[in-house]
């Protein structure tokens, strides 16, 4: 059984402490593929959020009706339905962004983060808690994509949300909007994050009296 968590933890843990992309390393495909501008990142993040939220709602609501043997099939069916809906809605509301995202909207179906949350959480918890969890995880995903998109657009185009911010003399670093830039960006973000986490852990360790002494003795 999973450890018991409070509702507020359900909401907040996905945002940062268990961020799907930056900590759990899930959903890396869209995080690398469509984050070359901030607008694309946000659209992808919101579409994924929508799918995750609606799927969690249905899975949690019908968890008693869905037989164990066909649960994965049913989850995928539910997810695929909402992805199709998100695809059509995006095309109707923001056709330009839809064009830029292309096939990657349809590929939300295979985003392991979404199926993972259904299997690990929504299928075992009540509807409100599943929705809290989906909201947290979805926001965490949007934050991660926003970070990627921000870095890549600023370096690769010299602009942010389409507005030039680095001046006309800036020579765009084109590699950052190409696929290698995705890997470089996620690599450096993870590097910074892990360095920071480790430093924090070391500090809290040295705060504990006796910890240093034990280390020396060892």
């Amino acid at each position, binding site marked *: 059984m999973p450890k018991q968590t409070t509702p507020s933890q359900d909401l907040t843990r996905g945002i940062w402490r268990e961020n799907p992309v930056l900590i759990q390393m899930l959903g890396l495909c869209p995080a690398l593929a469509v984050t070359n501008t901030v607008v694309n990142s946000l659209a992808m993040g919101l579409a994924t959020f929508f799918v995750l939220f609606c799927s969690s709602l249905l899975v949690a609501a019908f968890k008693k009706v869905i037989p164990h043997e066909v649960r994965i099939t049913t989850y995928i069916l539910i997810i695929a*339905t909402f992805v199709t809906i998100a695809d*059509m809605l995006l095309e109707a509301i923001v056709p330009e962004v839809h064009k830029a995202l292309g096939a990657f909207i349809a590929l939300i179906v295979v985003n392991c983060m979404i199926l993972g949350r259904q299997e690990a959480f929504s299928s075992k918890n009540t509807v409100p808690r599943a929705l809290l969890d989906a909201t947290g995880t979805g926001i965490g995903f949007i934050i991660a994509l926003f970070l990627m998109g921000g870095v890549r657009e600023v370096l*690769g185009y010299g602009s942010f949300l389409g507005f030039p911010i680095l001046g006309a003399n800036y020579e765009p670093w*084109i590699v950052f909007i*190409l696929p290698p830039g995705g890997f470089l960006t996620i690599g450096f973000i993870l590097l910074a994050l892990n360095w920071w986490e480790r430093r924090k852990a070391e500090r809290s360790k040295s705060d504990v009296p006796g910890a240093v002494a034990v280390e020396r003795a060892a």
Partner: protein
Amino acid sequence: MSGESTPGAGSRRELPVMSGHIEVPSWRLLLTLGIAGALAGLLIVFVYQATQPRIQAYKALQLRLAVSEVLASPARWDTLYVHDGALVLTPPADVDAGSLEMVFLGYREDGSRVGYAIQGAEAGFQDIIELIFGYNAETNTVLGMKVLANKETPGLGDKIVKDSAFVAEFAGPETPLTGVKSTRATGAANEVDMITGATISSRAVINIINHQLERLGPMLNAYLQEAN
């Protein structure tokens, strides 16, 4: 999970029974999936019906804007359909007009013709490039070009859209077009300077226009002669 075992020899033995799990008859599995599938289908049909008018309207608007742009804002234009090797103003009743290739013939305020707007699509560097271009059949010149859809490399191939100097090259050259490197330009009337670093994308654009004119040229001229 404790039920995991090494694959191979052990895989044929009875699967471990999950704690508190009851065997479900297969008709229930089928029923669940059937109902879920039917509901999913219904939902998708509903959203499709709701969004389709907007999507179609947007596409039509984009096409209108594109025609207007490559023909330098004509006062009006006729939509001509390619049917049976000729251009016709009204397609035969037994043919679905939406399935026919369309060409647009633009007119100025005074009724004189600006030229044709023709769509074309061919493989670029990464994916199909779709574009529309204006063409004056009387002077045999290209009037303008606008890329409608492309997935060319950002920063290199997508200059066929973003490089205004390249796009401006398509205002006025004679056909058939020849792509040249800007350092080797001779100033001939049918030359188009290609983009450094985007040779394949530039050439694709030029080829689309040439191939479309090769194919449709006789029809375009025949239609004009008939109209005169």
